[in-house]
């Protein structure tokens, strides 16, 4: 192998054919309401932790739906579990439990 001083740039295109939906599917098994999200952003706007840690439930859910597990994990680590997002969700999703469930199923396969 030769060193050229540059390498193939990773594509910014999301290849939905290659997205791994397994985490999202597992999430939907235990939290069917995850499918209800219409991405209105209320949860992120109201989030207590958001302004300190960047947490955003909407983004977490979107990341999981797009197979971006690492990004979602980074956000989830900043959640304070205060439940404000659950209060404001216009679709009545139990976001707080959804977050807990996600934290649990991360790394479930390795066990």
């Amino acid at each position, binding site marked *: *192998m*030769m060193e*050229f*001083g*540059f*390498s*193939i*740039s990773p*594509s910014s295109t999301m290849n939905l054919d290659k997205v791994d939906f397994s985490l999202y599917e597992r999430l939907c098994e235990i939290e069917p309401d995850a499918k209800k999200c219409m991405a209105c952003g209320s949860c992120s706007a109201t989030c207590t932790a958001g302004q300190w840690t960047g947490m955003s439930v909407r983004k977490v859910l979107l990341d999981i739906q797009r197979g971006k597990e690492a990004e979602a994990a980074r956000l989830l680590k900043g959640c304070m579990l205060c439940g404000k997002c659950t209060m404001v969700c216009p679709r009545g999703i139990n976001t707080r439990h959804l977050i807990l469930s996600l934290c649990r199923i991360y790394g479930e396969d390795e066990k």
Partner: protein
Amino acid sequence: MIYQGKQKIWSDYQKEIPDNHWFYVRSCIRQSFFPASERYFMKICRDLLGKDIYETEHHTTCGGIAYHSDTIPQETAMTIVARQFALMKEAGYKNLVTSCITSFGNYTEILETWREFPELEARIRENLWKACRREFDKPEYLAHASDLVYKFRHEIASKAKYNLVDHMTGEPLRVVEHIGCHYSKMFPHKGVGGAEYPCVLSGMVDSWGGQVIDYPERRHCCGFGFRQYLVKANRGYSIANTHKKFESMEPYHPDMIITNCPGCPYFLDRWQYVISEMEGKTYGRNGYGIPVFTYEEVAGLVLGFDPWDLGLQLHQVAVEPLLEKMGIPYNPKTKYLGLNGKEIMKPGLPTVLKCC
């Protein structure tokens, strides 16, 4: 693919191509990348088709590379192009044919700009007069050399010694056609078949017996992109595009790639080596690459010219497996012999990509 659907679009984008008397302008880079291509184009036009084609040594670059890499303003490029038009006028020609796709795009863009802003054209006339006391007429017809080959594809087919078929099985070869972005993506009505489904190359492939394959990234850029390649820090984007094209065409097992642009065959050919070194991956059969040709080289092969006279030894990807498949005889010993039988030296072999 619904062939009829594409035919309908092709019929909407037919282009008037003059029959004879052309003023030919060469490409800056093709003569070093694919030195025999332009020569054989002239040879085919003059000797085989008996056409009048003129070229002059006073011709220079069109400024396209500098323009696309942001080093000169468009007005400069326009003045350069105006000078080429003056040369054509002086030689008494009205039909301009370019060898280079970027030149073609550049000429087209300039002519369209002048059409929209006549005051700009007037200023360029003034510039040209001030700079070199020349006057120009705009060409009546502007064509790319591949348009001419497309126009005479049936005549070439009638004189063909070999076809784009597997001579053992009679199966048509699976051909990827790749058209330079500047051919019709900027001005779709200026290219044969428009921007979405141009047929300038697929027309040749069809009439010479091959089968065009339609793969998802068919319209994607080869990855040259001027700024992307020329600046090393951006070069990863350049190769990423080429990589994307190869990944997309790989499942179709193409036998060859035919192109009509200076940059495309070069990058499609050389990046195969770089990708093989970076990723350990090759796209042809048995560790070879997919050979990449200019349309002149393909026409030359079909007409039975010697592969080494066509300059195919200068390709990175070995062409021998394809020649064997088409049943074209070649002499491995003369591969690296120059015009006068002089050794031009054999290149070193890549570690991954198989070459002969």
